């Protein structure tokens, strides 16, 4: 310890020298606030260190000097020459006080210095709060007597932000625990749903009974650092250890609970009054009634959403689809039995299961936002590696889609963005030559249109080079030399298998598995992909997708003795037609429009026994019309789509199957593939 003391003495000498030079500076620049701060700081250090090393007199005197300089520091008064000379005189006195075992003379000297300082302070008309400090010491000492164990109730409800200051609330509970026997309850009442939870917040609170000989001051001291960051309640339960007397504890808690309820009622009453005659209440009452804090234990936290394992949603969807199947079976049997009561029930059941289906369907939708971060990341990474400045703008990311669709959509979208940045957006110099902004823009826009979702990816790059595309397509034998194609058709060529436009295959894109894969993926989801481009302006790729894959509205039709479902969203019209007027793969003319058609009876059954009168279901896709000729249209049907088994994968005209109420199978016609195959 002695070496510390020696060091401290040296420090004090140093402090005094610095004080002197600063004070002399102040003579000339009394307004120099930095110097005042420095003086104050030195005094402060001397006070603190003096106390540490047993130089209590020094510490006492500097304490008062510090108070004096606090007046100047807080700009209550400007320092004057009298104060400066007084301080200089005091500094000489400080040297005298540097004694380890002070005599009564020293103490008297210190007292004199202190009273002089206080006179200075009084002169400067400032208030000193040193009395308060003494008071605190007095109370501390007086409560130090009771050695009997008392039982206390402590409620510690940290505010959510308590962790922000590096406080670990558990340590405080530990500290209490060390004082004596504890009965600790943790409350998770405020814990929100996982999705609403901020991992940086504290939602836990504690209440405990403790039997200890410590006094309430000591218990309060545990929470000294968090008194402004928690609701802390310490109450005496008994003057003995009653931790094991459960009746007393339970009674105590009951009384507490009642008190809390009353507090709430009292705090809410004025508000209720307010609502009744709002106009008559004056603003003062309004303010005071609002300010009454509601007890946090009873404060309702509304939870807007919860997070559910996606497997559970899948299970739920599956069960709902089974229910729909059972429901259609019930409907079928009811219609055969012709029992009015049963019909009523079946009808109600049908209505409820449709609502349940819609609800389940809604639940499985997730916003595109959930994957937007991947787009951002890709744009960021690519713009770095390709040294192009690219800004990503997203719009309508709140648009919801079936999570299965979103999962399948990510790769195609990333591929499109990759293409846009790699091939579309020019490098900085080229852009400047073209008088464009130096940075390129990729825009992803999503919106809901009826039962489908439209997603557009647009870049403001060079646009597609149609001449180059045509040349490439001829070279690769995708089209022949004489094909007379519109610009739009040429642009669509990039969606053909084996087509890649980049002169050099780069790391980023153009590995041959290009846009054709994107197109295939989109079509697998019963989606449509479109392109539009203007040279040196933009390239826009639009994707239209159904909201969900698993349940669709369809039209149940019959061909021969087999059932087929045609998605309602594609159906334009249904017409009667004489089968004799049709030949295989013929064009058919209805209401002046001519379009190709497929007689499904001939195609699937091929027995030549098609009924005389058939129906043509006209489907439309990409402005194209196509007729599906069926034997019979049964009714509209909510098809719960199950994937086809492995052995059925070869049937490329169908994208799934649905089980009818009778237990029979209906095949879902993949309109995209049908049109592609027969047009």
């Amino acid at each position: 310890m002695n070496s510390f003391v020696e060091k401290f003495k040296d420090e004090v000498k140093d402090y005094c020298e610095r004080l002197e030079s600063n004070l002399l500076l102040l003579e000339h620049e009394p307004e120099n606030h930095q110097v005042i701060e420095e003086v104050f700081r030195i005094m402060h250090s001397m006070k603190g260190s003096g106390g540490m090393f047993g130089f209590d007199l020094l510490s006492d005197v500097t304490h008062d000097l510090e108070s004096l300089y606090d007046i100047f520091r807080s700009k209550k008064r400007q320092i004057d020459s009298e104060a400066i000379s007084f301080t200089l005189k005091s500094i000489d006195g400080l040297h005298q006080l540097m004694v380890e075992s002070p005599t009564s003379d020293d103490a008297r000297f210190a007292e004199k210095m202190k009273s002089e300082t206080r006179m200075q302070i009084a002169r400067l008309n400032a208030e000193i709060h040193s009395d308060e400090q003494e008071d605190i010491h007095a109370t501390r000492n007086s409560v130090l007597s009771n050695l009997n164990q008392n039982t206390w109730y402590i409620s510690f409800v940290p505010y959510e932000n308590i962790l922000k200051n590096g406080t670990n609330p558990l340590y405080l509970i530990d500290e209490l625990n060390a004082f004596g026997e504890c009965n600790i309850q943790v409350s998770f009442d405020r814990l929100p749903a996982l999705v609403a939870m901020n991992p940086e917040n504290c939602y836990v609170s504690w209440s405990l009974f403790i039997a200890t000989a410590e006094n309430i001051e000591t218990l309060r001291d545990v929470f000294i650092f968090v008194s402004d960051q928690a609701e802390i309640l310490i109450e005496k339960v008994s003057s003995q250890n009653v931790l094991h007397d459960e009746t007393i504890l339970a009674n105590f808690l009951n009384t507490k609970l009642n008190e809390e309820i009353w507090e709430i009622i009292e705090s809410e009453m004025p508000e209720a009054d307010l609502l009744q005659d709002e106009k008559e209440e004056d603003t003062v009452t309004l303010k005071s009634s609002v300010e009454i804090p509601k007890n946090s234990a009873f404060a309702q936290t509304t939870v807007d959403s919860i997070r559910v394992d996606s497997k559970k949603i899948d299970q739920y969807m599956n069960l709902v689809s089974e229910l729909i199947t059972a429901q259609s079976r019930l409907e079928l049997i009811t219609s055969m039995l012709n029992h009015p009561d049963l019909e009523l029930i079946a009808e109600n059941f049908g209505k409820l299961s449709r609502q349940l289906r819609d609800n389940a369907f809604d639940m499985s939708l997730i916003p595109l936002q959930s994957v937007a971060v991947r787009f951002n990341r890709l744009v960021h990474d690519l713009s770095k590696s390709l040294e192009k400045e690219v800004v990503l703008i997203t719009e309508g990311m709140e648009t919801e889609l079936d999570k299965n669709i979103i999962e399948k959509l990510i790769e195609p979208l990333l591929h499109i963005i990759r293409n846009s940045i790699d091939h579309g957006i020019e490098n900085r110099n080229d852009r400047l030559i073209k008088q464009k902004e130096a940075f390129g823009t990729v825009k992803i826009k999503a919106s809901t249109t009826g039962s489908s979702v439209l997603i557009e990816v647009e870049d403001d790059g060079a646009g597609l080079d149609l001449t180059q595309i045509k040349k490439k397509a001829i070279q690769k034998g995708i089209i022949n030399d004489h094909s007379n194609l519109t610009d739009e058709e040429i642009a669509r060529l990039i969606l053909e298998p084996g087509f890649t436009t980049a002169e050099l295959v780069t790391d980023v894109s153009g590995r041959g598995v290009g846009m054709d894969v994107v197109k295939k993926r989109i079509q697998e989801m019963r989606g449509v992909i479109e392109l539009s481009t203007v040279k040196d302006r933009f390239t826009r790729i639009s994707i239209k997708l159904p909201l969900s894959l698993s349940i669709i509205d369809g039209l149940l039709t019959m061909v021969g003795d087999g059932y087929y479902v045609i998605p309602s969203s594609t159906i334009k019209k249904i017409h009667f037609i004489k089968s004799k007027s049709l030949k295989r793969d013929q064009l058919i003319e209805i209401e002046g429009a001519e379009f190709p058609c497929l007689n499904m009876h001939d195609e699937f059954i091929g027995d030549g026994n098609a009924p005389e009168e058939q129906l043509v279901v006209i489907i439309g896709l990409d402005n194209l019309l196509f007729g599906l000729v069926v034997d019979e249209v049964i009714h509209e049907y909510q098809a719960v789509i199950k994937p086809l088994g492995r052995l059925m994968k070869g049937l490329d005209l169908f994208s799934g199957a649905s089980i009818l109420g009778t237990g029979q199978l209906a095949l879902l016609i993949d309109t995209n593939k049908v049109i592609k195959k027969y047009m």
Partner: protein
Amino acid sequence: MSKQILIVDDSESIREVLAFSIASAGYEVLTACDGLDALKYFDGRPIDLLLTDYHMPNINGLELILKVRQIELYKYMPILVLTTENQVDMMKEARDCGATGWLLKPFNTEKLLQTLRKVIR
């Protein structure tokens, strides 16, 4: 591994007595003579507690806390401020800057370790 505590004080004597007491209690100790000097330690190494003086040249205690709290790694590190004043507004100011608590001077070893145990185990 024992906990590492960074002591920042411009008074060499205080620094040494703190370092001595804290190291004797089994903690690892780092020392710095002011805020600026202290900042060099926040380079990604684990620091389990920052114990800093209030008034210091160059960068003072509050400025140091503000700076340190901005570093993600030390966002939740406990910080104690050494202070003499039993003044509410000064402690409040320190807390607003992100301090966890304070240690009042003068203190004895027992008081020091008791305060440390409030924020570090």
